[in-house]
């Protein structure tokens, strides 16, 4: 009996030991698996960020306009009184002309003949008027002797005066005709260059038809129009940077004049810049890009545009201070070509977070690394 009990105890112990071993094995496997589990949370380490250094700078807003270069003087030369066939055109575009130089002539034979006819008629009438005047004087002497009536004298004097007036009329007519003859020779109104030639010999021109254009570009005007909101920006005396597209020349000038009123249809303000062009390097009628800096230069700090969240005139950036990211809301001073200019309250040299802003909060610990551009 005692042996059976001891044997039974061993069996029971063996069962329990077997179960215990199995439990230990299962729990052991669990502990092994648990030890391999990742216990590290992202929040335990600093957030990685890439930074760039802010740079001290300055900013000045600019306005850009498209202008056109215009000649200081420009004249379209053509007949004013006469309609005629063009006899000769002596110049072509680019020709340099002096004042009074003949540019073209018109066929004015009719006008000359009419002038001569009037002269002859005036001469004949003048002779008749002189004879009448003498007859009147002789009648006055006869009338003092009582040989002629006062009425007869009066009639003779009136006829003489009428003929004198007729002579004056013919003379005036003759002057007018001679002007027409002068119109047949077209001359340069000022020294300059021929810009255009519109008509060739043989063409018929009427008063007002231009034959050539003469320009004076010793001084050139750059003309442009600005929106009415820029009225103050284009005040006379404002410095302007001019880029002439035709030549690529870059010039500096000032606004010479500004129209006092806006164009009613577009509400734009006309303004002009005079540019000396003695060497005639600037063509007229060509395009010029005008850049005007507005106001005074403002001190600013440059940061990459992609490093900031801009809403209106405020930009939010993250600045790394030690190992902490600080959110800074700064005033936007301006923007140019991928660079943002912010309030100089942000010191130059500050490490600005460029990558890693998405889930960054103020006060987060960061592991910053400066980005190599």
């Amino acid at each position, binding site marked *: 009996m005692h042996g059976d009990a001891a044997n039974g105890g061993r*069996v*029971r112990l063996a069962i329990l030991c077997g179960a215990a071993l199995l439990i230990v094995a299962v729990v052991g496997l669990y502990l092994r698996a648990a030890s391999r589990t990742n216990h590290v949370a992202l929040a335990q380490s600093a957030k990685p960020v890439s930074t760039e250094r802010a740079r001290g700078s300055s900013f000045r807003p600019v306005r850009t306009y*498209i202008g056109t270069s215009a000649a200081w003087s420009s004249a379209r030369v053509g007949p004013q009184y006469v309609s005629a066939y063009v006899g000769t055109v002596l110049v072509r575009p680019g020709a340099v002309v002096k004042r009074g130089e003949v540019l073209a002539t018109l066929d004015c034979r009719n006008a000359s003949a009419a002038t001569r006819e009037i002269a002859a008629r005036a001469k004949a009438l003048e002779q008749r008027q002189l004879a009448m005047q003498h007859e009147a004087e002789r009648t006055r002497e006869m009338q003092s002797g009582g040989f002629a009536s006062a009425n007869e004298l009066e009639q003779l004097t009136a006829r003489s005066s009428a003929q004198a007036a007729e002579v004056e009329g013919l003379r005036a007519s003759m002057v007018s005709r001679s002007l027409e003859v002068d119109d047949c020779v077209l001359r340069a109104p000022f020294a300059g260059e021929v810009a255009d030639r519109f008509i060739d010999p043989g063409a018929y021109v009427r008063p007002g038809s231009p034959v050539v254009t003469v320009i004076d570009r010793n001084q050139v005007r750059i003309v442009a129009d600005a929106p009415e909101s820029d009225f103050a920006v284009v005040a006379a005396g404002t410095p302007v940077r001019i880029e002439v597209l035709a030549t690529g020349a870059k010039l500096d000038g000032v606004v010479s004049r500004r129209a006092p009123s806006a164009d009613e249809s577009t509400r734009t303000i006309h303004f002009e810049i005079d540019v000396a062009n003695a060497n005639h390097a600037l063509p007229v009628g060509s*395009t010029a890009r005008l850049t005007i800096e507005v106001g005074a230069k403002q001190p600013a700090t440059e940061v990459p545009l992609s490093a900031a969240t801009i809403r209106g005139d405020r930009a939010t950036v993250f600045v790394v201070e030690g190992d902490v990211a600080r959110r800074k809301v700064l005033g936007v001073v301006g923007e140019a070509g991928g660079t943002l200019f912010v309030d100089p309250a942000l010191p130059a040299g500050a490490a600005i977070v460029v990558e890693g802003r998405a*889930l960054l909060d103020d006060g987060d610990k960061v592991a910053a690394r400066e980005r190599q551009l």
Partner: protein
Amino acid sequence: MTALALRNPIAVLMACIGVAVFAAVVTPRMSVDTFPELTPPVLVVGTQAPGLGPKDVEKTITWRLEKYVSATPGVEHVISTSRNGLSIIYVWLKWGTDLNSAQTLVQQQVAFAMAAIPKSLGVLPPFVLQYDPSNAPVVQVAVSGGGLSGPQLYDYAFNNIEPLLEGIPGVASASLNGGRQRQINIVVDPIKAAARRLTTKEIAEAVRNANALLPSGELIAKQFDANVYTNAVAPRVEAIGEAVVRQSGGRPVLIRDVAAVEDGGAPSTQSVSVNGHDAVYLNVLRVPGGNTIEIVDQVKATITQLKNLPPGVQVQSIFDQSTFVRASYFGLRKEILQALGLIALIILVFLQSTRGTLIVAIAIPLSFAITLIVLYATGQTLNAFTLGGLTLAMGPLVDQAVVVLESIHRHQKRGMSTADAVLHGANAVALPVLGSVLCTTAVLLPVLLLAGLGKKLFAPLALTVAVSMAGAYVVSMCVTPVACRYLLGHSTPTGIWRRLEHAVDRFTQGYASVLRRVLPFRWTIIGAAVALVIASGWVASRLPSTFFPDIDESMERIYVRFAPGTSLAEASRMTDAVGKLLADKLGKENVELVLANVGSPNNARSAMTSPNWGPYMAFIRLALTDPERRKLSQQELADRSRALLVREFPGVEFVQAPGGLVASVFNNGYLVPLVGEVRGDKLELLDEEARAVAAVMRTVPGVRDVESTLDMSYPEVRVEVDRATAGMVGVTARNIGQTTLEATLGNINTPSVWIDGANGQSYYVVTYYSHEAVSDASALGALPVLISDTGKPVTLGAYSRIRRSTGPVAIERNQLQRAAHVMAQVEGRDLGSVASDIRAALARDPRTAHVRFDFVGQVELMSTTFAGLGMALGLAVMVVFMIMASQFRSVRLPFIMLFTIPVSLVGIVTALMAAGQGFSITALMGMLMVIGIAVANGILLVDDAARRLEEGATPIESIIEAARSRFVPILMTSLATIIGLVPTALALEHGSEANQPLALAVVGGLTSSTVLSLFLVPTIYLLIARRGNRVERKLARTEGHV
């Protein structure tokens, strides 16, 4: 059935040959795939609205379309994304909905909705396509080289390759990525235009007039008819530049005077490189249900047949998913063959008879042949689950044949003639075998109650096992007896067989002796078993859980997000640097190919599938070398890349994800498995809440790559017109809008079309201001909106306020409500515990306690499927109990067998933990199978004991004798099942990782349930039998007194 078979042996033989031949014919015709068809029925509605920002797209298009589409019958839920110029709506239909008819209905609803959208928006007609939400291409076709520019590569691929690929059956789309769409650009120099008093509107009008695609008419005369053609379309691109915009001073201003006319491309919005070289690629997506191998084979054949390739141009297939499918299939096939060999060896050891082994071995291929024919007839493919089902069924079906064989053998030993022994032997076990078949099959029935993806995944496995079991039953009752009748004989073991017989006998006697010694300590045994089960249950509750096991598909994907506002050029430069770093540091032994895709494509069908929503987003795909050729697993490489990228590119957001088809399938339409959703109406509040959720997620151990999809810091330029003052000069809000559009993208809402005579294709002619001239926001202000009669311009900035702001790059919606998604990955932890920790952390944290948060994607899928499988497990136990109760006409005896179920947990937990695995749907499926097999083992034991008790033996003798006699069959069945699944449990073959947890659960569960239940079942039986006897004696005494 057996008698009939024995009377018609020739018919049985013919039936066997017929089944084998049919199976041999149909099996090669079956499609091969990784998984059964899992694609949920989803339609995608894509609408391109060039030039509209996300907020405008949402309110003018998405919102309206969503409303109409949601009302379509069969729609389960609607998800949308409104992006820059693109609205994408994913219409998730209820499982089982016919996609074709749903597509027609959705198309109708979309047409209704579009009728209310203003034409002036220039919105292109929406397309409705069938969509695979896994969004993983089955193969990609890269086109590169030849010195071709981006637009040229794009144009070649678009016109010559894409149509061919999209014509392949099963291909949903082969959309192009990279390069640029060919486009004729009229690039206006704003200075030249302004100097000539011209706006882009006038220039675009001149382009339209100079290049008019118009019908020319038909001449119908009395005597003849003729078609009329004009040369209204410019013959050459340069000819467009010759058109006169206006006459000025009698001189014409030509288009080329103010604009450059170039045969170029649409503005660059995307850049693609393959191994650092510029390329374009076609993303070949399959239709739901498309067969990967067939599609890829045809794609490859199409590529090789391409003729007249431009000199130097290379077309190659990359990221071929069929490689994995094939490897997986061949691996599984090899495992089945290995299992067959091992099982045959086990049978040989226990039966010590080559003839007996042959008889049992015949049952396996015959049962498989029946199964394959049924699978073919029901349209199933050969995949991890159908082949896994075959492996799983192997043990139980061997069991049936062995039980019949053993019974016949036993009857033979009793001196019966072979014919009688065969008939009586088979008939004696017909009912218990049927019971075990029913139990094994019944546990699979609740799978039918699963919903969605779980059902799609496991129904083929359940069908395979059920058909195999049914087939095996027919074979064991018809073929095995006939085979025994003619093959078994009366041979006496000699030599090694004799020694083996003795060893098996000694082992059996040893077991009987141990059982006899331990049975008196019933409560100790029960107590020890309970302690074991409790310990295992405690550990099981802490086991890692994931939806599906990690599979090494040799494809990794890394999503990259730079700071919002980063230009495409800068993002491309940095992404290439990331790709190069990974290739260099991971080495050629690990990385074969690097594909970098930066920015969002500008064609809608490509953009629809691109995870990049803006130029600052990118993704890198790494084609890894075959797993056999590398030392590191895909997961290890992913972890290594993560560490590398965080160190080298601090602050850049990276999200790692496996890039293969399998991994994508279970993400349920999202990029990664761990995705949380926050819903709300106000974007700012949503952003705040999503950021808070992300911050809390970061506090959970193992969470990595946290990223919110809603980012409100994408730069915006707002042009706000002062309507009153602008109206004074004739400037309208429409003028302003059109000017900004033309200044940036061009007149894309009213483009002209030019036809290239060389290839007959039509291309847009778009007029826009030179991007160099409009380099920043302030430059916009200088652009003329209109030119007055006096030739003076009114500029955009004159009556508008141009200011910067920020907004979303995309707006997501779910169920008609705005949503933000917080994505994350896990490292060194399981998805289930991480999700549960996140839930707890979110509920605890004051920042997120009030936030409406839900997991979507894989975690949601895991919750619903696990809940379904949990219910299935419970139902399986109930069904098994009901079958056994009916079979034994008792509720006490089935109760005994139920004890085999909890003890299987010990082995399941141990096996999974030893292999470093956790619970997954495949492991749960394995547990379901263990219930069936373990109970089936118990049935034979208890049935035998009950029979002996009825014959007058004492309870203890009846159970010991039953245990001794059933020991070998039980051991043989269990060992056959276990050994058959060992190759899968060890994941020896690439591609079998999916079934590894299933095999581990079965191997572990069956081992523990077999070993423990060999002691536990007799113990419980004894307790119940004695209690029954006591009751009977008490009843007898009562009757005696009466």
